[in-house]
């Protein structure tokens, strides 16, 4: 098992390298620069000397390949560089955003799972019925609204009209603050999970071993508990993992809307400010999160499914 984790960890490196390269290439041709973003407010022209000095300070006057080399060399030493914008080490900029981001992703996934999986189950138990149609329609409806639109709707209803929940912000120790953004972010994975679960349950219910279990005279609840649930979980796990893994990157819009201090909003701000080291750093974190979660999913598979050998 350890060896498996080690190997998967090593496999992350090339993926990460390609990601870094892609981002680097894209942002080397992107119009606008960190310097020009300094005067984006259109108020005061920034001193030209200051700009030149800044360019020099951040090595932006060096050729592209040298910059890439420098960056990769730094990366190899776990150094993400210095943020153009804040002039702090990139890690210091990213680190405070990490926990809120993870929290939001997990909370959204929790919401998606506790709603989506039962919905899928309910739909699959009576395939073709109105219940099936209804639940699936509900699930799809959830993801048919643009995120920010859905988020605004939640704000209006639950914060303004009903006054149940705060409309924005992050509080380290408050569950109330996370509910609305988590729901807004969780709808789309919820719909996906409901679908996957439905398909999975249908699949498993049609499996030969369920027929065997029926032939053994098991009651339906025992059948579902003992033979269906785990097998469905195996089918749903991939979706679950991919979703948790990608939620950090998908949270951009929601984070902006709810003033949630996550990696996503940092990323958008940094793209807008052309703070490339932070963009790189944030993307690396998002990608790492994805890869690590998927590694954990694989480990979980090994724990659940004896057919999968982990070597």
């Amino acid at each position, binding site marked *: 098992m350890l060896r498996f984790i080690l190997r998967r960890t090593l496999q992350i490196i090339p993926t990460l390298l390609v990601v870094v390269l892609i981002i680097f290439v894209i942002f080397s041709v992107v119009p606008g620069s960190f310097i020009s973003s*300094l005067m984006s407010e*259109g108020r005061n022209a920034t001193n030209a000397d200051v700009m030149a*000095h800044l360019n020099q300070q951040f090595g932006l006057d060096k050729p592209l390949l040298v910059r890439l080399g420098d960056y990769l060399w730094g990366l190899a030493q776990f150094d993400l560089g210095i943020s153009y914008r*804040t002039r702090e080490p990139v890690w210091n900029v990213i680190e405070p955003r990490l926990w*809120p981001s993870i929290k939001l992703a997990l909370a959204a996934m929790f919401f998606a799972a506790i709603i989506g999986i039962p919905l899928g189950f309910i739909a699959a138990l009576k395939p073709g019925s109105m219940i099936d149609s209804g639940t699936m329609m509900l699930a799809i409806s959830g993801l048919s609204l643009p995120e920010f639109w859905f988020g605004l709707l939640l704000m209006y209803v639950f914060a303004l009209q009903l006054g149940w929940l705060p*409309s924005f*912000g*992050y509080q380290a120790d408050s569950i109330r603050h996370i509910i609305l953004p988590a729901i807004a972010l969780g709808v789309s994975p919820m719909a996906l999970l409901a679908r996957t679960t439905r398909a999975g349950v249908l699949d498993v219910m049609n499996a030969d071993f369920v027929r065997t279990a029926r032939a053994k005279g098991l009651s339906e609840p025992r059948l579902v508990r003992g033979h269906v649930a785990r097998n469905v979980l195996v089918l749903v796990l991939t979706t679950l993992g991919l979703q948790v893994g990608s939620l950090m990157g998908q949270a951009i819009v929601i984070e902006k809307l709810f003033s949630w201090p996550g990696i996503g909003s940092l990323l958008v701000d940094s793209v807008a400010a052309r703070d490339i080291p932070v963009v790189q750093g944030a993307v690396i974190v998002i990608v790492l999160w994805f890869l690590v979660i998927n590694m954990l999913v694989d480990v979980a598979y090994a724990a659940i499914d004896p057919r999968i050998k982990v070597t």
Partner: protein
Amino acid sequence: MLTRLGLIAALSLGTATIAMAQDATPTDGGKLVFTAPYGNSITSLDITATPHTQDEIVAKALNRSLYKWNPEKGQPELDLAESVEKSDDGKTYTYKLKEATFHNGDKLDADDVLWSYNRLADPKKALPGAEQMLQIAGVSEFQAGTADQISGLKKIDDMTVEITVTNLADPGWNLMSNYAPIYSKDYAEDQLASKPNGLGPFKMANYVAGSKIELVKFEDYFEEGKPHLDKLDIMLMGEASARDVAFRNGEIDVNILGPVQYEAYGQDDALKDNILEVAEVYTRNIGFNPKVEAFQDKRVRQAINYAINKDLIVEKLLKNKAYPAVSWLPVSSPAFDRNAEPYAYDPEKSKELLKEAGYETGLSFSVTATPNESWGVPIVEAIIPMLSKVGVQVTTDPVESAVLSDKILSDNFETFIWSNSSGPDALKYLTCFYSKTSQTACNYVKFSNPEFDKLVEQAGSETDPAKQADILRQANNVLQEEAPVWFFNYNKAVMAYQPWVHGLKPNSMELAIQDYEDIWIDADAPASRK
């Protein structure tokens, strides 16, 4: 250059309405939940490292500069100095510093001032605040590397500093800047970004990056009896619609309003009495690049000014949260000509002018614009049908805000729509249209007009404020006639506040920047603010 001290003293706030009862005696204690509306994050807690207003909103609570802007009087005034003596030649100023304490307990002395200004001017540090230092004698030598230190800065004794400047202008205009605060020389520089140490009325308690800054009253603040508040939270909220919900929900105490909300709040009985509005010194405009041949013709530029019904746009799109522009200088400027009339909406005249200029048909151009609702793509969308009625085809060239200035400075545009500072220092901002001012400085439309140049030169050498204002008024009128840009509007900044909040000031420089030490909340504040 001549001093313009006092010239702006008459800066009129004209339309600013202050509905607050300022007569009540401030009470101490409680918490204010303020908002920083220009994004979901701040760049740095060290204001010297950033040029963003968003950061200034926070810095205003943490730091103090030698001077400060007095929004009510419309001029700079001493802040960290008790008194100043001006030399006879008007170029050397001797400051007697106040007794003040930094958040870490250090006492303010002359070395702190010297250290702070040297640091700002240091070219190796490339700090945006360096711009504020340029007036001090010896800075250019220092920056060029020919001098080890700034010759214009002298310590007389522990509490006395002498500053020599290069011209007759009041250094207060530069040294009041929030980007040029006084830091403690004994405090580790690399800590400034995360653990700021200033002289301001509040000190950092908790910073949640990307979310909020929690500040607490600094007990040793140098102004007696201030600040009134015990706590100050600054929420970083860039989304206007989210801010709207939060304000209506009572989660935040102040809200900078956009046009739509301005209208909505004004119509809402519960909200309309607690609105603070001020004419800000920004002029929104569409700049015509003379590299497009048609724009070299004055008649074309005027025609466009005639063709657009800006009153309607201001009314409908900006919901009257702006003042239709007459020329470049804003209404609050002393050089503003109260008798001048803005370009009227006159499509017929416009057509005529275009015909004369030979552009009856076939004129088309694109407007480089950011998504900004008040001076971006939506405005361009509104002028498209208007200009199409006079036969001018307009397309949008939407860009991110980071790209706009890039495109302008590299002369890569046909026209742009932007919001530019136009005050309070009228000469400084009219000089932007001086033919010798480069495009990368601020003559974005490469304006060149001998008559205008002459007036600006004349104004620069005029020492009598009243006369100077007169000349500038003329120059401003020339500008209107020449129409190097489409004069759109002057911004009206609007802030809504909860009824229990007192002490907010109509700051025409930037309404979102408030003197926190003067704000207080009354007994009607909800429990969460106590």
